């Protein structure tokens, strides 16, 4: 029976990468002086599983490499080896090499042999060149075949059956080896019936194996499980005729080598075809779904009764309405449950940071404590995958530019060790991720100077602190010169903001000189669905994300102020909020261009507020977002489109981009900020 092992590769890779992550975080904990035996055990288990799996699935190189790691970890586990920084560093290096090996195998590309060799040598160096002779030492017994056969004396101990071993099985196996088997039972030590314990074995056997190319190893193998529970004597039967047999072991070896070779050949083929991203789903989430589908089926059958009823009359209408309400509830719940399947804890994105901070802090010679909270906060898998890089950038940034060198910190009366705090939590329908450091804060003067150099602001512009800080996200504003020159990643903060916006999110920064900075990222829980406010302008319907709406109001003419250069602002309580006439931006015909004949919807994005002028509010509903980029092309100011209940298409407005658009339109005449204009 042949089984295609390739079908398990996907699972193997998945769990191996998980195992590597576990090893990495375990090793980082170790390093902080926390020599917890359970922790070492966990690391050992991960290495052990990868070794076992890679051996089984034919990835010999990985198995060999892991073997040395395992040996080292085993020594640490048994207390034979001290946990030192250099050992931990080497093991961390091994984790990296292992990860790249697995990646290479997965993609069908070449393994970086030099890298592997270097790391293997480093491991061997620590292990002190101890050989793994243990593996081979056991197999030095003879494999010759005596001419006639073997005589075997098998005298089990009384307890042999208590480990589940069965003497009959052993005899049966011997029987299958040779051409002819003669068995002699020795009942000598059998006690009287009264004294017999049925769970013990009192007999012994004399077995002659005749013919069949049996080697001594074959016989030893039969008794391998019980060799500590019996007396075993194997002797060659008296030689009578000249016997020429093929060495059976050689043949076996050839056979067992064959599938290995097959596996290696297969590995070299491009594995792309089988690549599919999978997601692990908790059973309870699936049960919930099944439950919801059951409810839907009930509602459906209830509704279909009306369709079949020929005497449909008004009395039925109430019940029909009930049914439709139920249908709506169930559909919504089903939708939520389906969404929940895609949800994964943010720890998947966070787990790389201990390592990153560890590596970078030694690189920059800074002392950093990383605090992470809210790792169990869940968000959509796609968002999770895409948020990783922006987060890395922000953390690097905090570490590089934010946290000061230890001596500077001490001079400023701070503790030597800087702190970076990563936290995630839910707020409304959003997930909020904060990257907080207790470093020097952003350098306002430098940012402003740079922005003036680059023409991002005019020489005589007066900007609030928040507006200045926000400049770091502008394109053309290289972070390289902001506070220090250590950067060289080729990614600016504008890319961070763009990536986050692509996910429908926003990022802003707050900073206090000398105290530190906080970068706040807000992300939608999912990319697929949005709570939308439908608004009408002329013949068109647009959708504003409910999450960014602060309030909607009727216009009081006395609150409208005209600012130089055509800009209008609306005084709302103590704030002046710029009015954005959507019909102007999108070039369509409104029902009315007179402000007090329509409505203002006050929206906020990235700390900025605008009042969007629309003809009417139509209603709120959840809308499924269809990408404009994939179906048409990216349109500035729009995050996508959706299909409404009546089949028409409505465009979804991206508030942050709309504000940008408006600002471009107004050039630098009017500045916008969180608190409105300074009056």
């Amino acid at each position: 029976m042949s089984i295609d092992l390739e079908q398990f590769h996907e699972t193997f890779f998945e769990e191996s990468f998980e195992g590597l992550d576990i090893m990495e975080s375990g090793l980082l904990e170790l390093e902080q002086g926390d020599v917890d035996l359970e922790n070492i055990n966990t690391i050992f288990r991960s290495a052990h599983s990868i070794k076992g799996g890679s051996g089984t699935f034919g990835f010999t190189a990985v198995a060999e490499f892991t073997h040395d790691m395992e040996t080292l970890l085993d020594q640490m586990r048994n207390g034979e080896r001290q946990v030192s920084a250099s050992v931990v560093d080497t093991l961390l290096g091994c984790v990296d090499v292992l990860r790249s090996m697995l990646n290479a195998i997965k993609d069908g590309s070449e393994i970086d042999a030099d890298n592997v060799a270097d790391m293997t040598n480093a491991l061997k160096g620590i292990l002190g060149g101890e050989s793994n002779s243990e593996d081979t030492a056991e197999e030095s017994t003879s494999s010759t075949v005596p001419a006639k056969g073997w005589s075997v004396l098998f005298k089990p101990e009384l307890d042999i059956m208590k480990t589940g071993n069965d003497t009959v099985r052993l005899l049966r196996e011997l029987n299958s080896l040779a051409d002819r088997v003669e068995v002699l039972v020795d009942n000598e030590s059998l006690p009287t019936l009264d004294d017999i314990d049925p769970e013990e074995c009192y007999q012994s056997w004399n077995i002659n194996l005749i013919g069949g190319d049996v080697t001594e190893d074959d016989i030893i193998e039969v008794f391998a499980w019980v060799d500590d529970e019996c007396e075993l004597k194997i002797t060659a039967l008296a030689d009578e005729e000249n016997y020429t047999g093929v060495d059976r072991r050689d043949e076996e070896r050839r056979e067992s080598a064959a599938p290995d070779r097959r596996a290696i050949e297969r590995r070299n083929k491009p594995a792309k075809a089988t690549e599919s991203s999978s997601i692990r789903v908790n059973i309870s989430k699936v049960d919930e779904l099944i439950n919801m589908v059951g409810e839907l089926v009930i509602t459906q059958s209830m509704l279909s009764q009306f369709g079949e009823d020929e005497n449909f009359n008004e009395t039925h209408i109430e019940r029909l309405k009930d049914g439709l309400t139920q249908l709506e509830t169930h559909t919504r719940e089903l939708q939520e449950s389906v969404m929940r399947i895609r949800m994964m804890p943010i720890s998947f994105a966070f787990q790389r940071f201990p390592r990153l901070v560890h590596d970078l802090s030694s690189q920059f010679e800074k002392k950093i404590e990383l605090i992470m909270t809210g790792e169990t906060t869940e968000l959509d898998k796609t968002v999770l995958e895409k948020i990783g890089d922006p987060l890395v950038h922000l953390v690097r940034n905090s570490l590089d530019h934010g946290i000061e060198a230890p001596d500077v910190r001490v001079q400023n009366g701070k503790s030597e060790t800087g702190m970076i705090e990563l936290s995630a939590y839910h707020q409304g329908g959003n997930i909020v991720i904060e990257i907080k450091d207790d470093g020097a804060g952003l350098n306002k003067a430098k940012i402003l100077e740079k922005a003036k150099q680059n023409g991002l602001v005019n020489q005589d512009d007066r900007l609030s602190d928040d507006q200045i800080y926000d400049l770091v996200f502008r394109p053309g504003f290289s972070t390289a010169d902001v506070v220090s020159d250590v950067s060289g990643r080729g990614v600016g903060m504008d890319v961070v903001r763009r990536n986050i916006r692509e996910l429908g999110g926003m990022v802003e920064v707050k900073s206090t000189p000398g105290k530190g900075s906080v970068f706040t990222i807000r992300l939608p829980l999912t990319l697929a669905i949005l709570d939308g406010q439908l608004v009408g302008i002329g013949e068109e319907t647009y959708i504003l994300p409910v999450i960014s709406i602060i309030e909607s109001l009727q216009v009081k003419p006395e609150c409208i102020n005209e600012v130089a250069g055509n800009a209008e602002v609306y005084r709302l309580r103590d704030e002046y909020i710029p009015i954005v006439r959507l019909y102007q931006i999108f070039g369509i015909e409104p029902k009315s261009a007179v402000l007090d004949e329509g409505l203002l919807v006050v929206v906020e994005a990235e700390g900025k507020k605008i009042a969007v002028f629309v003809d009417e509010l139509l209603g709120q509903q959840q809308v499924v977002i269809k990408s404009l980029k994939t179906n048409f092309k990216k349109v500035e100011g729009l995050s996508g489109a959706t299909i409404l209940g009546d089949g028409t298409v409505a465009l979804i407005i991206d508030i942050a981009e709309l504000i940008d658009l408006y600002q471009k339109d107004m050039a630098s005449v009017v500045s916008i900020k969180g608190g409105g204009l300074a009056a």
Partner: protein
Amino acid sequence: MANILAVDDSSSMRQMVAFTLKGAGYQVVEAADGQEALNKAKSQSFDLIITDVNMPIMDGITFIKNLRGEANYKFTPMLMLTTESSSDKKAAGKAAGATGWIVKPFNPDQLLNTVKKVLG
């Protein structure tokens, strides 16, 4: 048909073992660690136990030791999945009541041969 309990914390190994055995017509129940396996073993009966040694929560040797103490499992064959190098593990397993072992890495055919031998 014989009912087999397959215990391993590595899901790829577990899948492989279960798939192979099911393909040969055995019934297979899976468990991810010793404790889960012990609970499952107590709630139904098995003709053969195949368990990994290194597992979180409860390792294979503790599991075997506990299960061997149960009246129903006094003579049930229990096999450990172990690597060649761990000869002391084999001895510890035997002391705990293991019947024998299957040496990792193994291929499906080796697994089936061993299982067939044990179950007769």
